[in-house]
């Protein structure tokens, strides 16, 4: 059954500027459509146009047909129940305090009888494995759990169409897999049609039926995943494709590998494996910037340690990536280094001195600065420019000084005159980074800096971090994007159980992990175990093929 069809759909905001044009697609029940494109290309606008309650104000042309009738004919009750919308931030759309109330919210609004509501809550919670969380306050859940509650809270209405805006953006790889597996199950068993907007579409690409690519608001193509991979070849968006697709394209194969395992099997059959070798450790490029010695931390007096016995060193001239599951203590670790939290055990050394000896803000004077996971926290003025112009000592910075930094970050000067909440994720991230760079720190701590960035912005960020460390600075960043960590970090640390379960160069870290690793490493591990990024793997395969030819 056809769930949604758009024909020549276009939209313009009343204030002008952005327009969406020529969106033509249809979706059958049980199908998954991936909508992708660069930041600000209109993905979220398209998604909201399909949900009448969230449709933005502006002029719309073309048609949207939902469940066989025009969107204007759709009853309010049907719109609420049949179209489920899940926003970008896990738990961001929560209305009530605990899980059970959140699940009850929609069916109560639909006026269902009490018995029916309880039945739906019971079966939905069992389906999503939420039984043990039902009475827990939402604020106590992890990002992965909040994501499941977000989905369950709309699935309880038994929607026929699900609209998901960057559903895996803040999830660790394992939680993202769990979430996407569940989506597959919903499509298979209940026939729910799903539309997903994603920047980082590596995990979704292999599962979707169609790919809709938007460029500056216009639909560039609507293709199957294999065709889309071919169409994206050579563009900067290619870097967001799954490693298996990129590899098959680079090797000139007719058909893309369906899974990482299939790609790994192909390599085994066609290439001679490297002899086993011990991982090499590279010497540090500079003196220690941050040293943690036997550090322990817990949030409550009687709660278990979140971090315990942690030893770690980050050096000047290097980028250090900290990885680990949601709730492993990664952000807490950054806060401990930045002095936002105090250790309960051990000591933190910054640039060779105990952190506690830096007094009266001297730690932050041209030494250390931290970018929080939510960059909005750093902005309070009506425009980004006003925020950047104010220095912490109460003085004002000149426009020239500000432009020197923002231009180097690739920030359009026009964006600086906008309100921080009106910027896209990538623009906001770079604006916040500019605010930190204006303090001329030598140590940068970044909490998920790649979050919400499209491939081009991610590449630019990686280049910036490399430039910063080439100038002698040190970067420590926390990430869930293992490929980004493998591509740009000099060293990696994997947190587990409150301490560093593994550390080393990305090559040694990710080649020795067999589950928590990059997709490229999964493909390459039996043949070229040190190739942990798609680019390195492709380069190696092409080189070896030339040799054998």
């Amino acid at each position: 059954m056809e769930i949604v069809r758009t024909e020549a759909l276009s939209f313009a905001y009343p204030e002008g500027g952005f327009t969406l044009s020529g969106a033509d697609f249809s979706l059958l029940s049980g199908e998954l459509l991936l909508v992708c494109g660069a930041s600000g290309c209109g993905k979220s606008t398209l998604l909201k146009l399909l949900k009448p309650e969230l449709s933005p104000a502006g002029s719309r042309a073309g048609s949207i047909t939902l469940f066989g009738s025009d969107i204007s004919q759709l009853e309010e009750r049907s719109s609420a129940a049949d179209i489920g919308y899940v926003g970008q931030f896990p738990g961001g759309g929560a209305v009530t305090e605990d899980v059970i109330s959140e699940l009850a919210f929609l069916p109560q609004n639909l006026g269902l009888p009490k018995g029916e509501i309880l039945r739906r809550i019971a079966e939905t919670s069992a389906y999503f494995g939420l039984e043990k969380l039902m009475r827990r306050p939402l604020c106590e859940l992890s990002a992965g759990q909040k994501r499941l509650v977000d989905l369950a809270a709309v699935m309880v209405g038994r929607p026929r169409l699900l609209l998901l805006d960057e559903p895996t953006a803040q999830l660790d790889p394992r939680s993202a897999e769990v979430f996407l597996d569940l989506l597959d199950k919903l499509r298979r068993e209940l026939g729910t049609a799903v539309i997903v907007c994603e920047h980082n579409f590596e995990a979704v690409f292999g599962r979707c039926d169609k790919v809709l690519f938007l460029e500056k608001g216009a639909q560039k193509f609507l293709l199957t995943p294999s065709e889309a991979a071919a169409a994206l070849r050579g563009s900067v968006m290619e870097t967001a494709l799954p490693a298996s697709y990129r590899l098959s394209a680079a090797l000139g194969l007719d058909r893309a590998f369906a899974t990482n395992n299939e790609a790994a099997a192909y390599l085994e059959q066609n290439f001679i494996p490297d002899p086993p070798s011990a991982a090499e450790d590279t010497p540090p490029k500079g003196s220690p910037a941050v040293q943690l010695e036997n550090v322990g931390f817990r949030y409550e007096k009687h709660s278990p340690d979140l971090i315990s016995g942690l030893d770690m060193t980050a050096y000047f001239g290097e980028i250090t990536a900290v990885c680990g599951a949601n709730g492993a203590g990664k952000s807490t670790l950054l806060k401990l280094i930045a002095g936002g939290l105090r250790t309960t055990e051990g000591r933190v050394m910054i640039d060779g001195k105990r952190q506690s000896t830096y007094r009266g803000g001297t730690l932050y004077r041209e030494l250390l600065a931290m970018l929080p996971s939510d960059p909005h926290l750093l902005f309070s003025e009506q425009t980004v420019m006003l925020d950047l112009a104010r220095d912490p000592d109460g003085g004002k910075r000149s426009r020239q000084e500000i432009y020197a930094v923002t231009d180097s970050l690739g920030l359009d000067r026009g964006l600086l005159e906008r309100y921080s909440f009106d910027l896209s994720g990538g623009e906001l991230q770079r604006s916040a980074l500019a605010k930190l760079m204006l303090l001329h720190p030598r140590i940068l701590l970044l909490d998920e800096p790649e979050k919400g960035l499209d491939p081009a912005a991610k590449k630019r960020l990686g280049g910036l971090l490399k430039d910063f460390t080439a100038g002698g600075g040190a970067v420590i960043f926390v990430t869930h994007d293992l490929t980004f960590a493998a591509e740009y970090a000099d060293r990696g640390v994997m947190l587990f159980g409150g301490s560093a379960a593994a550390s080393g160069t990305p090559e040694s870290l990710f080649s020795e992990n067999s589950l928590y690793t990059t997709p490229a490493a999964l493909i390459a591990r039996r043949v070229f175990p040190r190739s942990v990024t798609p680019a390195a793997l492709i380069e190696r395969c092409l080189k070896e093929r030339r040799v054998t030819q």
Partner: protein
Amino acid sequence: MRTLRAFRPGAACIFFIAVIGGTVFVASPLLRLISLVFAVLSVVCCGLAKHPLRETLFYLTAAAAVTFLNPVIVTYGSTVLFRLGKRPYTFEALVYGCCNAMALVSVMLWFRLFTAVLTSDRINAMLRRPVFSSAASVFTLTLRYVPEMKRRYYDIRQARKMSGYGSGDTYIMRLKAALGDFFSLTAASLELSAVTADSMKARGYMLKPHSFVGERPVSAGDVIFIAVSLAAAAYEGYCKYSGSLYAVFYPSLSQKCPPLCAVCFGALCMLPVIFSAKEELKWRSSGQRR
């Protein structure tokens, strides 16, 4: 709390109105003491005291501030204890401050119990009649936003400090930074409200007719609970307006509280403790182990 939650939201609300109203609107030291004692016991019995030491310190500080500052501001009263400059510091003003401190702390504690029993969804269900629906939205969102804003303010302060923008050396700079934090909080709160409003709209809020999963027919227990609450409140009101219940602080202390009124109000305030004890007994007699 478990058994208080078993009553319909309306019944529980009437109980809290009776208790909090009786504490606030009748300035009797005896009734306020009764309210305070049972508020403390109720919070403890319902397991709401998560950090007993820290919380006791907070309430004692608040009570001491109200008690000892009142005579500094109010100079009425005939018994002068000492003088602060030319201003008399009187015993009566001290007692009045103490009486108000008891009311303040007990109301804070009753509200803790109130928010634990009447969660936003229950208030929503209670008020979601055509006349009250907007009020319900405002009320439930406010309940959710207060802790949310507290958490957000902490995040903002911490993030700004760690980014190097909240660590001024002088008081003026710190004040400016605090103002920036406040503006940031206001902006974020407005944006978060818009997200929540969208989410509510997207999930059919304000569609009619609606239902409530916790709604069950009014039971005899609800009726008795409401009747007891209303009777106690009515008798207290009667005593106050008939002149048999009063407290005068200035120029000298004089107060009267009929024993039956104290017993009725005490019994009302004691209900959460009784419910908790009953629950405990039921648990123990069930043979289950903790």
